[in-house]
């Protein structure tokens, strides 16, 4: 670990909770959110009456006619009487942005205990409605051309394989690795092992990306309780992981405006900022959750963040470096690819996974050994906005 490492925010994660991620949950959005929140409060051994700030991340409620005023309704349902409450929306980086809001509130002294919840019920709309809502995330002139997020993935994947002379198997290996990590994760949407051939044989979505290169639509919720960092909390429970740094950055809205199709400035900038804030370097990270909405994104982000040199993440993946027992375990819970991607909850589910890893309270088949420093990146759109977090045990 770098000698300059800091706990710059003075905030710790006192408790975490989440629901299973599913393709079609029987629970309503509010019920998913409340279940995850109650789990986090119980894990932190904190009474709802002690929460003075609630931040609720959700991306699609209006688009799917699930109503408004979600944070206020959740505050009432949980009995957070008098707490401040607001709703956060940052498309697929909503969860991490809500987490950052909670950290900021405590860091600035506006709150002592913050509950941050992210939830999404994408099955609330039919596939056509959800596809239309997501396709609206792109620039207006991109939308007119029928461009979608998988379209960007296909363009980037083709460019990546071409420029780096990488085999198609490199993308499939990302999918196979993340599916393998999800098999023993009880909250993962796909607890099914696949091999490289399965991924290579799946239907084309946006060439060269195939079905197994793409994350699913999901229902689910995740939550964390944040408190001021002390050695021991008031109830005598051991302190949880500390938030060593948070940072975010925007990029171009129109993906085509990026000079290089393999460059995502928001990822690189947010990464530089969070490593600087936490006083660490990429080499200090023991475990990472990377926003793998498409397999190629895991490779590009690992390179943009400085974990690997440009054009080498695919070889590292094929060599097993990013596997659970590799030098840099990436997406130990299955990532967006296999754990699932309920937009508002995804960033928080990354934090939940990393807290479990840092606390070491996972079975051996799921655990990264001796993890002390953890990193997460949650990305909006195809890099319009990137949100990074560093946690330390």
């Amino acid at each position, binding site marked *: 670990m770098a000698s300059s490492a800091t706990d710059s925010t003075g905030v710790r994660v006192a408790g975490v909770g989440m629901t299973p991620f599913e393709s079609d949950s029987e629970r309503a959005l509010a019920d998913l959110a409340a279940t995850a929140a109650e789990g986090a409060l119980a894990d932190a051994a904190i009474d709802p009456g002690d929460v003075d700030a609630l931040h609720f991340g959700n991306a699609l409620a209006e688009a799917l006619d699930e109503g408004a005023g979600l944070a206020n309704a959740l505050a009432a349902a949980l009995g957070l009487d008098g707490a401040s409450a607001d709703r956060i929306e940052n498309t697929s980086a909503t969860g991490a942005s809500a987490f950052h809001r909670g950290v900021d509130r405590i860091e600035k002294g506006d709150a002592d205990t913050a509950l941050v919840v992210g939830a999404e019920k994408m099955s609330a709309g039919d596939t056509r409605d959800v596809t239309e809502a997501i396709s609206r995330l792109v620039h207006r002139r991109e939308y007119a*051309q*029928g461009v979608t997020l998988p379209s960007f993935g296909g363009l*980037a994947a*083709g460019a990546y394989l*071409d420029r780096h002379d990488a085999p198609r198997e490199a993308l499939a290996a990302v999918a196979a690795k993340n599916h393998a990590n999800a098999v023993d994760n009880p909250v993962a949407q796909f607890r099914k092992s696949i091999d490289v051939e399965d991924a290579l044989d799946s*239907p084309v979505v946006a060439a060269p990306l195939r079905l197994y290169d793409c994350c699913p639509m999901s229902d689910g919720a995740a939550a964390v309780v944040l408190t001021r960092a002390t050695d021991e909390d008031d109830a005598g429970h051991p302190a949880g992981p500390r938030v060593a740094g948070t940072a975010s950055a925007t990029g171009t*809205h129109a993906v085509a405006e990026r*000079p290089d*199709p393999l460059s995502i400035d928001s990822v690189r900038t947010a990464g530089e900022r969070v490593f600087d804030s936490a006083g660490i370097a990429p080499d200090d990270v023991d475990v990472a959750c990377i926003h793998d909405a498409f397999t190629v994104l895991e490779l590009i982000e690992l390179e943009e963040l400085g974990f690997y040199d440009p054009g080498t993440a695919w070889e590292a993946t094929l060599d097993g470096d990013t596997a659970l027992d590799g030098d840099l375990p990436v997406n130990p819970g299955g990532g967006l690819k296999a754990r699932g991607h309920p937009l508002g909850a995804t960033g928080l589910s990354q934090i939940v996974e990393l807290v479990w890893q840092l606390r070491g309270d996972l079975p051996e088949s799921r655990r990264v050994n001796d993890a002390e420093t953890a990193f997460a990146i949650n990305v909006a759109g195809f890099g319009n906005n990137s949100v990074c977090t560093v946690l330390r045990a």
Partner: protein
Amino acid sequence: MTGSDHPVTDGPADRDVPADRAFVCDDCGHRWYYDRRRCPACGHGAESAATVRLETGAVVATTTVETTPPDVRAPNHLALVRFDEVQLIAQAADGDLSPGDRVRFDGSHRLRDGRERTDPRLVAVDDS
């Protein structure tokens, strides 16, 4: 202050221009494709920016999308193309384009079902 003190104008963000048109700064001449309130090169206001037809560009990357959103053709052939300082993603007429190919906009097509207007698609330039 009344509303008439701040007249609402149609800036680039509100202008629906054909697919083969880029905006051009009336102060420095810089071109851009995706709507902005100001010229990305010099910062000059873009409310009155004219548009210019894009001529010949080079393909940077391609994809063919099989799973398309409502009202969009399937498969949808797309290309990332560079026209000097302007770079854009647009529909290609077919799936035969490759990186490095020279292209131009041509034809008249309804890019999404239900739209009134039509736009050109990208086609290969015949250099022979």
